[in-house]
């Protein structure tokens, strides 16, 4: 498939005729990302092509959304300083500060 043809492929928004009521931005690790009203934090990150936003406690491996419905807890992220939020469930809000979560997200605690 040529680049030109690929450029014409439809998007999920085309499929359902989506016209979001608002777009805004949030910050992910200091980077400004565009968000559509109604999207979860995970959806905003996927829209930007970001698939990983935490590292595991044992090996520091990258992880992102897996089950998409709140069952697997792989998509944990720190939102506005609050760690361990499930990105696939938490709605994105204007001006949110989302940061990659390392391990438990409680590295500041001396435990």
């Amino acid at each position, binding site marked *: 498939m040529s680049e030109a043809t690929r450029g014409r492929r439809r*998007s999920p928004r085309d499929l359902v005729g*989506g016209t*979001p009521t608002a777009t805004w931005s949030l910050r992910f690790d200091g980077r400004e990302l565009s968000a*559509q009203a*109604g999207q979860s934090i995970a959806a905003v990150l996927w829209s930007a092509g970001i*698939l990983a936003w935490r590292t595991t406690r044992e090996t520091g491996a990258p992880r992102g959304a897996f089950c998409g419905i709140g069952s*697997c807890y792989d998509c944990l992220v720190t939102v506005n300083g609050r760690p361990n939020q499930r990105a696939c469930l938490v*709605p994105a809000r204007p001006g949110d500060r989302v940061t990659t979560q390392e391990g438990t997200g409680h590295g500041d605690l001396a435990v």
Partner: protein
Amino acid sequence: MATSPSDRDARRADTGPDSGPGTGTAPAGADGGPCDLAVVGAGPAGLAAAVTAAGLGLRVTLLDAGERPGGQYYRHPAPALGAARPEALHHGWSAFAPREAALRAHEAAGRITHLPFHHVWTVVPDGAAAPGWILHAVAGPEEGPARVRARAVLLATGAYERQLPFPGWTLPGVVGAGGAQAMLKSGLVLPGKRVVVAGSGPLLLAVAGSLGAAGARVPAVVEAAAYTGYAAHTPVLLRNPAKLAEAATYGSALLRHGIRFLTRHAVTEAHGTGRVEAVTVARLDRDWRPVPGTGRRIPCDALAVGHGLVPQLELATGLGCATATGPDGAVALELDPDGRTSVPGIWSAGETGGVGGAQLALAEGEIAAHALAGRPVPARLARTRTRLRAFAAAMAAAHRPGPGWTGWLREDTDVCRCEEVPAGRIREAVRDLGARDARTVKLLTRAGMGWCQGRMCGPAVAALAGHDPAPDRRPLSCPVPLGHLAELPPADH
């Protein structure tokens, strides 16, 4: 949507129509008496049960972890995304829309209290009003406490995806097939541009069709079972022409999007550094053992994978409801034809009684509502249920994982994603330390002890221990702030 829905709903739970005026922190139903029926889950089964029961005169409280009714099957974009055609992502939207409208009408009339964003974490007997129940929920992103009292409870908690691990399945870009579908339906997003769909079960066909329609390239759908497994159940198929038509719809969608359909094949490895870049697909023998030398690489930037669904039962098993292993090897509730569990006053409908799809869930929800209201169950509904349950059993048997799938695990393949426990450590616990079941493996290796509480690795750990999965043993169905636990009355247990 900002913060308001959860705040509003948390308040509603505290000062709803069932509670006394000005009680502030009193639970719904605490002072004005319990509602007739609490329904847990607003998917096809719960939604159908709630609106049918309300239509038959019961006062219903419908609690749901999600923001909008519909569950995973009818998951749809938030209103703010302005989707003019949400039905483009769905099969059977015409079964959902009128029921959602009925829910809104019953809500407006005060016959249904709908509590979205309420995750019920335990159900306990109501010491003050036996027979009756108190449902404890975590409400909204702020995780506030909410309680609902009810004379009867219907658990319509649905299912989640069954996952079988393989090397590379923890790479970013490897996502659940249902997960990709859920993210697409609710957030209008894709995990990549070129997405392989793999695993087992008819859900894969629906997922591949949706991804293709939404603009992804799907190089292949990789199905571990042989669809010839259905041939043994020809009479059941012939009694379910709608299911055959659905299969034809999926088939033509695959053709339209140029998607290859490989049966008796599996993704045995995902490759990449930092994210998935390709997968290896191998042929399987009839026991799902990879055939040596048949592996070939397919480049992709995402893999959507899942091996069917498993019933979500922790609330039911916490109450002591009887279970049995189904033809797919998964644990399901033992229910009578009306939806009664073995515990008087606790009912269930839909996937909890064995995975069978949305049409069956709708029928079972309506059947339970009639029985709960003391009305005769319409013969039409009973016939539908019998017919679709037979189809569900045929489907479950056809896609039950074969024992040879563990042949694609390497010793260093993480089986438990949360605690990062590799297959080698689990095999060692079984072989050298005498573990005979998933629970003992957990105690010896921490597999299943992390955040997801074994939801992702449970079937795989059980298989490595040489058994079918045991019933859920999770005292809490989701993480609960310690303060809420302290509010449980000690005498209730």
